[in-house]
C-alpha cells in the first residue's frame, strides 16, 4: 500500500509523523457502555477485535450504525449512507482484549441515534484512519481543545502521560454544562474557559492562551474551524509549532473521493484531503484565509 497523497500538485507530501501507518480494517464494535457525560456529550465504550493496528492519538475511526462489514447484502442501503468520522478518544489493550472509546456530541442524524445505542448492540467501524499527532515533540506541550474537539486530546494526553511527557491542557466550551467533568481530563495543568462563565474563565480558549506565559510551546489543537484558525494565528505570532486536527464533511474517510478538501497553504487553488493528509496537519499547511472564506 502506498501512502502517497492521492491528489494533484496539492499538498506537501508529509510522511505521517511517527513513521508509516498500518492498513485500516473493517471491523465491528460491541457496545459495552454508552453514557451521557455532559450536556449533549456522550461516551461510547466498544469491545473491538484484537487484530490490526492499534490507533494512534489523532487518528479516527469511521462508523456506520449497522454492524457487519458487507451489510446489508439483501436489502440495500437506506437512511444515512455515509460513515461518520470520530476521533479515537481512548484505547486500551489488555489480555487480548481491546476497548475503544469514542466521545461524541449528539448533533444530527447519526449521532442522535448513537445516543440510543444500548450495551450488546453492534456497530460497524473502519480504521484506524488518518494522520496522528506527533509524539516526539519539544516541550512545553500545550493541548488546546474546544467543545467535542477534546475527544482526540483525551487519548493524546493519556499517551503523552504514559511516555512521561509533561503537557498542559486548555479546554473551552460554550457552556460549562457541555464540558467533561474535571476528573476525566488528562494531565495536571488544566485551564478552562467557558462563554457562559460557568467553569473556568469567562471567554474562549484564546483568552486563556493570551494570558499564558510559555516559551515556544508545541501546540496541538482540536476544535471548531474558527477556533483552530485563531490558535494557528496565535501560534504563528509566537513562532510556536502548531498541529491542528481539522474537521470536514467526509465522504469515504479513506482518500477515495476527494470530498473532504480544505484549502492548502501556498498554492491556491490547491486542497488538502482532511481524511488522509489529515486530520492532523501542521497549522502552516492550511490556507486559513481561504478556509474562512469557504466557511463550511
Amino acid at each position, binding site marked *: 500500500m*502506498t501512502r502517497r497523497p492521492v491528489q494533484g500538485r496539492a499538498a506537501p507530501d508529509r510522511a505521517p509523523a511517527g513513521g508509516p501507518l498500518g*492498513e485500516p480494517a473493517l471491523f465491528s464494535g460491541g457496545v459495552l457502555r454508552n453514557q451521557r457525560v455532559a450536556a449533549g456529550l456522550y461516551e461510547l465504550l466498544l469491545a473491538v477485535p484484537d487484530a490490526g493496528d492499534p490507533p494512534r492519538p489523532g487518528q479516527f475511526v469511521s462508523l456506520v450504525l449497522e454492524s457487519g462489514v458487507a451489510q446489508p447484502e439483501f436489502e440495500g442501503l*437506506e437512511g444515512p449512507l*455515509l460513515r461518520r468520522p470520530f476521533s479515537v478518544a481512548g484505547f486500551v489493550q489488555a489480555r487480548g482484549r481491546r476497548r475503544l472509546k469514542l466521545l461524541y456530541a449528539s448533533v444530527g442524524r447519526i449521532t442522535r441515534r448513537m445516543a440510543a445505542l444500548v450495551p450488546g448492540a453492534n456497530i460497524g467501524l473502519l480504521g484506524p484512519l488518518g494522520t496522528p499527532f506527533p509524539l516526539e515533540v519539544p516541550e512545553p506541550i500545550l493541548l488546546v481543545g474546544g467543545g467535542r474537539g477534546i475527544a482526540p486530546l483525551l487519548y493524546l494526553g493519556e499517551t503523552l502521560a504514559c511516555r512521561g511527557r509533561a503537557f498542559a491542557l486548555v479546554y473551552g466550551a460554550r457552556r460549562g454544562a457541555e464540558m467533561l467533568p474535571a476528573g476525566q481530563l488528562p494531565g495536571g495543568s488544566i485551564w478552562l474557559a467557558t462563554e457562559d462563565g460557568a467553569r473556568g474563565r469567562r471567554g474562549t480558549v484564546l483568552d486563556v492562551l493570551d494570558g499564558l506565559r510559555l516559551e515556544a510551546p508545541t501546540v496541538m489543537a482540536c476544535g471548531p474551524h474558527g477556533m483552530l484558525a485563531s490558535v494557528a494565528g496565535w501560534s504563528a505570532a509566537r513562532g510556536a509549532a502548531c498541529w491542528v486536527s481539522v474537521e470536514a464533511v467526509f465522504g469515504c474517510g479513506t482518500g*477515495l473521493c476527494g*470530498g473532504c478538501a480544505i*484549502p492548502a497553504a501556498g498554492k491556491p487553488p490547491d*486542497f488538502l484531503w482532511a481524511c488522509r493528509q489529515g486530520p492532523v496537519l501542521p497549522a502552516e499547511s492550511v490556507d486559513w484565509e481561504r478556509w474562512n472564506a469557504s466557511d463550511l
Partner: protein
Amino acid sequence: MTCDLSTDLGPLGLANPVMNASGTFGYGDEWPRLCNTAVLGAIVTKTLTLEPRAGNPPPRLQETPSGLLNSIGLQNVGVTAFLAEHLSALRALRPPVIASVGGASAEEFAAVVERLEAGALEAYELNVSCPNVAQGGLSFGRSPGETARVVRGVRRVTQRPLFVKLTPNVTDIVAIGRAALDEGATGLTAVNTFLGMEIDLERSRPRFGRVGAGLSGPAIRPLALYRIWELARSLDCPLIGAGGIVTARDAAAFMMAGATAVQVGTATLRDPARPAALVTELATFAEARGLARIRDLVASLEGLRDVP
C-alpha cells in the same frame, strides 16, 4: 454448480462484471487489500485531465435521503502524474484498467488519450457527463453533436475500446448514445450523476458554490436502471450500468435490463470493500438461481426488445 462470471465488453473480456465507478475509488490502486481490488472485473480510474486540477472549493458533499450530492469538480493529478505515480501499482493488480478521461474541449480529450496510450491500458471511458465543471461536462454530454465531436477526436488517436459515459440529464439519452456509437465508441456507460442541489437554510445560500451538484446513490437506482433499459432496447452495444448499485440484486437487475457490466460508486464510500464483496455475492446469487453463466443474465428481461 459454480457460475461462470466472465463477460465481454466488445473486444474486452472481463473475469466478472463488477468494477468500481470513477471518482469514488481514487485511482484504483489505493487500497488493494482493504477491498481486494485484484478480484474485480475491471478497475476504473478517477477521471484524468491533461493538467492536474484542484477541483471545486469546499463544501463538496451533502447527504440527501438515500443519496449523495457531490461537487468534487474533477480534482485529479493529471495524466502525467497518473502515469508516473499510479500506473505501475495498477498494473501489478490483475484486472484490466479503464482510464476515465475528461477535458474542457474535444482536443483535450484526445490529448489525454494520446498521452495514456503509452500506458497500454485496456480501455477508456470518456466522461462527457460531469455536472460539476464549467466546461466539457454536461455541456458536451447533453448534445449529440458535441458528444460525437469528442468521440471522433479520440477515435483518431486510439484503437482501444472506448466507452462513453452518459448523463441522464437529457430528454433522449438514446440519441446521445447513438451519436457516440456512430463515431466509433465501443459501448456506453450509464449513468453519471443527476443534477440536483441543496440549500444551506441557515445562510440562505446554495450549499455548493456551483449551485448544481450530482446526485448518486440508492436514491437514483430506479432512474439509472431505466436509462440502461432505454439504451438496451434501442442500441446494440456493450453497456456498463451505474447508479445506486449496492447489492447483487441491484447488479442483477441492471444486467437483466441490458448491462454487460456494472459499476459501484457511492456504496464504495461507505464500504470500500463493497465492489470486491459484490463479486462474491453475485456468484452466490447466480448459483442460487442455477445460472451456469452470468452472461445469460444480460438482457434477459422479459420483453426487453418489445417496444411498448
